[in-house]
């Protein structure tokens, strides 16, 4: 795979930025982090940005997104606002612990690490590096593969802050944790937060992440999240992407699952200018279950690209992927899902489906469901479809007096429903149901307001 960089301007700029600010960057990080940093910048210098020759980035030119003179901050910028002025969750039954990240920095600078029932910790990764060095060192940069991906190396080189969650052995956190990623600034900004989630054996947690933009300028995010899910641990991770169309978001999620663990991951993409989601899952023990689901509803000139890689490294694991998308106007989309079944991963069950609806001739979708299989006793299947709403169903509804427009909405909603119903937290499911319906009706504005209705403004 070629990673030759032709146009190196922005790469050089970033490398210079790193060298020039070395002391600031390294200043408040422990040595073990700075060592990784050194390696990361070297790798970034070698790998650079993935270009379109890279099969995995065939349909999204990420480098282009960096060429915009974004500002990046090496320490938290002081933007003051009252959390309750902006956020007060009105989802009646969604009783969550709310955590806020502002431009990639943990917002509550007074309480950088907070203890949850049972001894779990949630808070700032930067602070955790200092307070729990052993824990962080054991997991940090162990799952996010920098060797293959320049953007992960870039994030690692500049790593500063992000979410840290630690759930010790046997602890079950009942209440979902809600992480709100807010981008807000007067200037166009580049954010690269880093998140680390550690779930030790037999623990359970559920996290909801909402990505929002609260000011009208352009933003670029290149974030990395690592998840260690220990033996028999259960983890639910739902993400609602709802940024404005001037935002570009590249995210890399790395799930490392141990024996008998179970992860369900929903990615609901409602809005965003350019979205590239990389989701890598390593099933590193027998008896794992992984469910990776996604729904994308795009219109105008939006672009969404989901890249999923499920690595069945051990026998007897199950993985399910379901991604569905509706593309309107001149929106473009790509889906690239890969299942790898390694040599000895017998009795693997791996399923993958990607279904798309194109509403106009200007919208387009590229889909690449892939299987790479080296074990014989497996059940694997994949399917991909691109089509329109079912004509027969349309007529049936119209023959019952439902106007065309309404029938179309009902069908689109029904199409999306299959993904929504996979969401585990019932209150969240209802909320997302509602959001999706609004989104399809065009009532969900691309404005600054937080559409989780956590927001009163």
């Amino acid at each position, binding site marked *: 795979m070629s990673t030759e960089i032709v146009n190196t301007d922005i790469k050089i700029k970033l490398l210079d930025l790193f060298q020039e600010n070395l002391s600031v960057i390294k200043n408040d990080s422990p040595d073990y982090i700075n060592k990784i940093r050194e390696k990361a910048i070297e790798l970034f210098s070698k790998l650079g940005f993935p270009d379109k020759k890279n099969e995995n980035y065939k349909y999204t030119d990420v480098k282009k997104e960096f060429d915009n003179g974004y500002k990046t901050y090496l320490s938290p910028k002081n933007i003051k606002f009252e959390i309750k002025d902006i956020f007060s969750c009105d989802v009646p039954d969604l009783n969550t612990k709310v955590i806020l990240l502002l431009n990639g920095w943990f917002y509550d600078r007074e309480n950088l690490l907070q203890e949850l029932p049972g001894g779990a910790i949630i808070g700032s990764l930067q602070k955790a590096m200092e307070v729990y060095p052993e824990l962080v060192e054991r997991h940090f940069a162990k799952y996010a593969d920098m060797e293959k991906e320049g953007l992960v190396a870039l994030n690692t080189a500049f790593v500063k802050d992000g979410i840290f969650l630690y759930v010790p052995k046997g602890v079950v956190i009942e209440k979902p944790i809600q992480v709100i990623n807010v981008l807000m600034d007067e200037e166009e900004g580049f954010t690269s937060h880093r998140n680390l989630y550690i779930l030790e054996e037999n623990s359970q947690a559920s996290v909801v992440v909402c990505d929002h933009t609260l000011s009208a300028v352009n933003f670029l995010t290149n974030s990395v999240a690592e998840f260690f899910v220990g033996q028999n641990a259960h983890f639910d991770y739902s993400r609602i992407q709802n940024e404005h169309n001037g935002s570009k978001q590249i995210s890399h999620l790395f799930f490392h699952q141990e024996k008998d663990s179970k992860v369900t991951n929903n990615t609901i993409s409602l809005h965003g200018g350019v979205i590239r989601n990389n989701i890598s899952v390593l099933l590193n023990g027998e008896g794992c279950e992984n469910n990776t689901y996604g729904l994308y509803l795009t219109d105008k000139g939006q672009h969404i690209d989901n890249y999923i890689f499920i690595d069945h490294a051990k026998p007897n694991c199950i993985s399910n992927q379901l991604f569905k998308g509706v593309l309107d106007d001149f929106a473009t989309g790509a889906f690239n899902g890969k299942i790898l079944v390694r040599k000895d991963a017998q009795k693997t069950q791996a399923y993958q489906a990607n279904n798309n609806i194109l509403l106009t001739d200007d919208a387009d979708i590229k889909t690449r469901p892939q299987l790479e299989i080296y074990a014989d006793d497996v059940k694997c299947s994949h399917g991909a479809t691109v089509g329109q709403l079912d004509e027969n*169903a349309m007529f*049936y509804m*119209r*023959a*019952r007096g*439902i106007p065309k427009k309404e029938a179309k909405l009902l*069908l689109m909603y*029904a199409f*999306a*429903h299959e993904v929504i119903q996979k969401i585990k937290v019932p209150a969240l499911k209802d909320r997302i149901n509602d959001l999706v319906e609004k989104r399809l009706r065009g009532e969900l504005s691309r404005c600054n307001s937080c559409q989780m209705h956590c927001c009163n403004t």
Partner: protein
Amino acid sequence: MLSIKNLHANIEGKEILKGINLEVKEGEVHAIMGPNGSGKSTLASVLAGRDMFTVTEGKVTYMGHNLFELSPEERASEGIFLGFQYPIEIPGVSMVNFMKTALNEQRKHKGLEPLSSSDFLKHMREKKELVELDTNLTNRSVNEGFSGGEKKRNEIFQMAMLEPKLAILDETDSGLDIDALRIVANGVNKLKSPHNASIVITHYQRLLDYIIPDYVHVLYDGKIIRSGGKELAFELEEKGYDWLKKGITV
């Protein structure tokens, strides 16, 4: 109420209806019979506004409207109901949501306020009993996973909900066992009034044991080749269609 004059229709250039004439008045029940492929279902689809068929000639007036100027949903709101021969499965759309939308659209068309949720549910409960429809079915997606009989009963249930002026039942009896047939026919009979009318399309005479038609028409090769009273159905049962086919070649 409905007047069909010299109706011709084709699908992808192949002519299926070759000059149909039919008058339906309030309070009447018409049965249309005929062998497979004679154009029965096409006639039903054309009346409901299916756009895969092209009308090339003729005129259909319904309640003073030129029917072809109305969209399928407008026809439905004006009281035309088509009971589908093969009801469509719509995964993900719940029966409740589907019917509520349909009913309220009809009310909107008539200038009425939408029904409140509780009124709607009450209305639905009543109609369900009428066709002996299992409550569970209305909690599921439209027709999804329904058995053949359940789908047909669901059609009659929807008809009861929407209270049409003109019901066109396309082979509603096909695939039904005798009990289901009785229930479906019973539903149709209960909904009969001096102000509405039905066109019952069937292949067999047996449905007409339960739904007594005022007129029976025989459709063959895109034309009505014989019309008569209910006794025509018995004659057909006895002699088969060949008897009539021979008739037209003479």
